């Protein structure tokens, strides 16, 4: 086919165009870090931490784990440690593909009865929420821990 070279070049251009457009947003396969060092594909319950009643020594350090794409959105976890103990793990960045939750996130948030509370400034013993069971969560936590030099 005479036009074959033009078609092939157009294909490469189309490919490159989409990749360029995508690189602006969530990191992926192509722009992110390479394949992980042999990691078992099954995340286990990562190291629990103990917080005895005595306040832990050392200043609190916080790190943000890598943003992990988990197929339907992007998730990044923030980990706070004191010394080598994890004192807090929270989701810092969440972008879901769920249509209605995205819509809700953008529209005026309906006011809940007690106003929106900040988890930091309220004294609480724990937070209950639906769990992140995806690997993205565990990997993000692990990367934050790696950044903090814990374990």
């Amino acid at each position, binding site marked *: 086919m005479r036009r074959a070279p033009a078609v092939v070049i157009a294909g490469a251009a189309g490919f490159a165009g989409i990749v360029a457009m995508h690189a602006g947003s969530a990191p992926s396969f192509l722009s992110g870090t390479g394949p992980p060092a042999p990691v078992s594909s099954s995340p286990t319950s990562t190291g629990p*931490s*103990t917080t005895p009643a005595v306040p832990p020594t050392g200043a609190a350090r916080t790190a943000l784990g890598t943003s992990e794409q988990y197929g339907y959105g992007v998730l990044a976890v923030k980990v706070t440690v004191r010394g080598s103990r*994890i004192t807090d793990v929270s989701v810092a960045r969440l972008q879901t593909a769920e249509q209605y939750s995205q819509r*809700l996130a953008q529209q005026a948030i309906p006011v809940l009865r007690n106003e929106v509370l900040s988890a930091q400034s309220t004294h609480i013993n724990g937070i209950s929420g639906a*769990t992140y069971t995806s690997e993205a969560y565990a990997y993000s936590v692990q990367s934050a821990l790696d950044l903090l030099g814990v374990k």
Partner: protein
Amino acid sequence: MGTVVSFHVEPGECPVADAQAAVASACARLHELDDIFSTWKPGSPINRFRAGRLRLDEAPPEMALVLELCEQARVLSQGWFDPWAMPGGFDPTGLVKGWAVEQALAILRLAGVDAAIVNGGGDIAVLGLPKDAHAWRIGVRHPWRPEALACVLETDRAVATSGCYERGPHLIHPRDGRMLFRTASATVVGSSLPLCDAMATALVVADDDGPEIARSLEGYEAYMIGVDGKEIATEGIVFATAGVT
């Protein structure tokens, strides 16, 4: 199972070293249970059981216990919690996590600590009461603002929350396989954490029937947030007022 478990222990009269040892052994126990029940691990007993390659009498005894609990939960939730209706086959994950956390707490209780709170990815089991307080203060995560709380509950019992705001529709309607629900988040407070876990899941799946089911279970309280921001709570729910900003 891919979650982070955190322990907060007030040893009280129990020696700190014992408390730490108890925590360590509770962690070990959690790993054991993870080995049995993790659907992410190829060849785990739960996966083999699901694929029909492992009989109940050959499986670890915990498996039978969990199955029994699932059955009870299914009955109590009027069928809305149904681990047998999951697309991949029998999947007790919704209940196992709470049960595992409760098992971990039991080890701490045996060690004689004064008070403890074990939080496994949002499933909270408590022992005793915190110092200088009459109840544990548990924040409920805001369904669509990741860093915020929707409210703070005061309780002396276990708390579990379920919702479909994390990775999109992953909860399956047991009757017709629908994937979207109108309840964004459901929190259940009660004495048995695995049952709280199961009930919370059931309330999300049950849509309009949720409040009625919540009321039907004696001794368990529920707090639900709809996708429109509307909140429904049973009478026994206690919201913290002091110290809330």
